[in-house]
């Protein structure tokens, strides 16, 4: 039996990152195919190549036996490939009907044929079996309704291949069930469906075949899902390469006052009743899937978004941090951001400025301003300590390698001698060796008594570094787990904590 859609040896590189390195995928008619992998494994990139958003650097797509190349999303849609991307993909000011037909509005001489637009959109919605007002503005709909509109949008054309990237992330249990019924019906009609999800229960209940991606390669290709257990799939997803590293067992004195304590914290972004504490010298992990609200929690903590309930205690005293400047100068809290390029570095400025920016106020002298020598002293100290590979303190930060950039953004926080350091995804996009250096560095800092909140989507990294792991799911704290540093049991417990809540919601 030939495949309806086949991808062979897909390679896609972005500047500095190999997002896909030779991925194969084979979709047959009348099946639901699970596409699994950790955050950053390349699932969304693959979906975007299959739907013409990106063009692969090499490899080919074969649709019903014919090699095809899609130069735009519209071409893919016209060829019968529909998609629901992970990102919200609607125009809020447009009506439901307009959004459903956005790819290729029915027209007569350049003028939109509104009647036909409503008719086709209505048909797509009725395929889904949902009732949404075609003339409502999408901006006025609930998140779940918007999600359904997006699925209807993917079905609006004569769709034979439907790709769904995390379609249930914002659906309630009953809405998700309804979606699954639709997907089963579409499968019965002979369509091929690709289902990307982090929720393994869903995947096992729904899917027939599976492809697992890890670091941009397919580690399991179009296998029958029935041959695998959830355990085996998780192991394939996360890999074991880091488990072989020697783990440092540490003990943290938790009889002292925590540096940071949250009591029943609620925020304007949607967190409810978050309670956690971080002790001096502790590495406290914050784990969760994309969209669980980890970075958002930190933003609220630092005054970038509003806290609406509960208390924040710093050194045992209830405090309200107004902004980043206050966090820095009054409470000595450093925040190493995830987007170091956008948020963490001044790419056009020399290393010297990048490191000393946080202590300018301390270094400044009346009239003379900030002496260059003082800046250089601070900078040189951390360049040495972190082993930053720069030609001199004057090298522009933008010309450093990714790993060294990350070290510079860490150095500027070390310069303030922080008592609490929040580190967001420290090793995304850095090579394995730098990653190891970073891990040693984080643990060394903790040994010196710095309290560390570590946000990471990399589960092996989390298990090898954290002393305790707080797990967030959908803006709720679903558990704080003492880290045994034994990877199989820890990954299991963390995944269980996440999936349990998914289950409860269903």
């Amino acid at each position, binding site marked *: 039996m030939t495949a309806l859609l086949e991808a062979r040896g897909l390679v896609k590189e972005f500047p500095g990152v190999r997002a896909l390195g030779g991925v194969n995928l084979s979709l047959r008619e009348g099946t639901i195919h699970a596409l699994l992998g950790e955050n950053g494994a390349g699932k969304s990139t693959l979906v975007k190549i299959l739907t*013409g*958003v990106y063009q692969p650097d090499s490899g080919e797509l074969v649709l019903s036996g014919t090699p095809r190349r899609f130069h*735009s*999303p*519209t*071409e893919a*849609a016209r060829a019968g490939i529909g998609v629901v*991307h992970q*990102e*919200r*993909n*609607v*125009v*809020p*000011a*447009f009506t439901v009907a*307009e959004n459903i037909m*956005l*790819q*290729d*509005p029915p*027209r007569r001489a*350049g*003028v*939109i044929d*509104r009647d036909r637009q409503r008719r086709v959109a209505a048909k797509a919605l009725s395929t889904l079996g949902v009732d949404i007002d075609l*003339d409502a503005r999408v*901006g006025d709909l*609930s*998140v779940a309704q918007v999600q359904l509109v997006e699925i209807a949008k993917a079905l609006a054309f004569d769709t034979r291949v439907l790709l769904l990237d995390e379609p249930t992330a*914002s659906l*309630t249990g009953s809405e998700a069930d309804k979606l699954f019924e639709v997907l089963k019906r579409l499968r019965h009609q002979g369509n091929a469906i690709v289902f990307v999800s982090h929720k393994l229960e869903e995947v096992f209940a729904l899917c027939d075949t599976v492809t697992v991606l890890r670091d941009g390669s397919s580690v399991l290709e179009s296998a029958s899902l029935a041959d695998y257990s959830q355990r085996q799939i998780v192991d394939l997803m996360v890999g074991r390469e880091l488990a072989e590293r020697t783990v440092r067992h540490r003990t943290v004195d938790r009889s002292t006052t925590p540096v940071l304590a949250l009591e029943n914290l609620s925020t*304007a*972004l*949607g967190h*409810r009743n978050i309670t956690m504490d971080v002790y001096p010298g502790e590495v406290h992990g914050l784990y969760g899937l994309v969209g669980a609200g980890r970075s958002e929690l930190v933003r609220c903590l630092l005054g970038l978004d509003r806290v609406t309930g509960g208390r924040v205690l710093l050194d045992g005293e209830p405090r309200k941090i107004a902004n980043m400047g206050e966090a820095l100068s009054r409470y000595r809290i450093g925040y190493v951001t995830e987007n170091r390029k956008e948020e963490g570095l001044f790419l056009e400025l020399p290393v010297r400025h990048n490191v000393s920016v946080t202590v300018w106020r301390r270094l400044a002298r009346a009239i003379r301003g900030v002496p260059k020598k003082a800046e250089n002293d601070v900078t040189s100290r951390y360049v040495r300590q972190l082993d930053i590979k720069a030609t001199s303190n004057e090298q522009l930060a933008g010309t450093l390698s990714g790993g060294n950039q990350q070290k510079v953004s860490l150095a500027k926080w070390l310069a303030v001698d922080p008592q609490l350091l929040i580190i967001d995804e420290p090793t995304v996009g850095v090579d394995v060796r730098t990653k190891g250096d970073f891990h040693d560095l984080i643990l060394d800092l903790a040994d010196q008594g710095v309290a560390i909140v570590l946000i990471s989507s990399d589960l092996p990294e989390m298990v090898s570094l954290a002393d305790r792991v707080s797990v967030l799911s*959908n*803006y709720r704290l679903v558990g704080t787990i003492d880290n045994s540093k034994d990877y199989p049991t820890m990954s299991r417990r963390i995944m269980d904590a996440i999936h349990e809540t998914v289950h409860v919601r269903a």
Partner: protein
Amino acid sequence: MKAWWERIPLRGSDLTLTLIFVGAFFLLAVTSGGSLLTPRVLLSIIIYLAVPILIGLAQMVVLSVGQMNLAIGAMGGATSGLMAVLMASYGFPVWAALLSGLVFSALLGALNGLLVKLTRLNGFIVTLATMTILLGVQYRLVRSFTVDQYPDWLKNFGQRTVVGIPYMFLVAIATSLVVGWYFARTVAGRRLLASGGNPLAARLSGVSNDASIFQAHLISGILVGIAALVTIASAPGINRSIGGDWLLPSFAAAIIGGVSLSGGGVAVYGTVMAACVLRLVDVARAQFSLDPSWVNFVIGAVVLFTVTVSEWRNRRAVARPMSVEVPA
């Protein structure tokens, strides 16, 4: 299916603006002791409405893709200057001169769009630069003279009426209707709004955001061309001050009319209505011999107020969906 009157795309702010206009008009009519209602005064109010409406629309179109056009006044000045000089110095027949001007203005808009696309710079800086260049072009064309050696019938054309309504006003209204139809009904217009409303979604749906930005600047150029046409048909002559006072009113009409600075929406009726209200401010100044600086002060303050309020409302609207996603 909604009833037809529910489908008229009128928004709350449109209604408010209409009420403000009607109220202000009556207030002016009463306080002026009825002199506002004489045909001659009424006619002058309406004739000089055409340019504010057209430049408001020209600004609205670029705002709808999240861009802006600072060169509107300079484009209008250079275009009307070109039309006048072609007739006065080069003996172009009226139709040829006006057509050349229209094409010239459209090309200027296209140039803005092309520069934004090629340089990847913000439209603000690109149009700031073209504005400065065009001010030079305008001066080069008319120097410090008033060019008026072209047929008198053209200068007086703006005063002419059909069933009591000035032609120029009809041109502005017809243009507004076409612009409104373009954004509501054509594929190109909807794509433009999709780009402005959510560039990522637009791209994933196969809409070229670059094309949208180019198109917006091009249409803006055409609308400025029409405004220049109206100007040359209602002014006694063209000098270098033409267009000098277009920039703020163009933003004021669009923004007070309800167009968001972040793009994604148009408000044709609102822009027209806001231009009418702004015109009344001008009329009031003339009526009561107020200092012109007060008019600028009032318009500036109103723009600032409107933008602040709409930004504030946007932020609230953005904050809301999140709480829906996470049931308590």
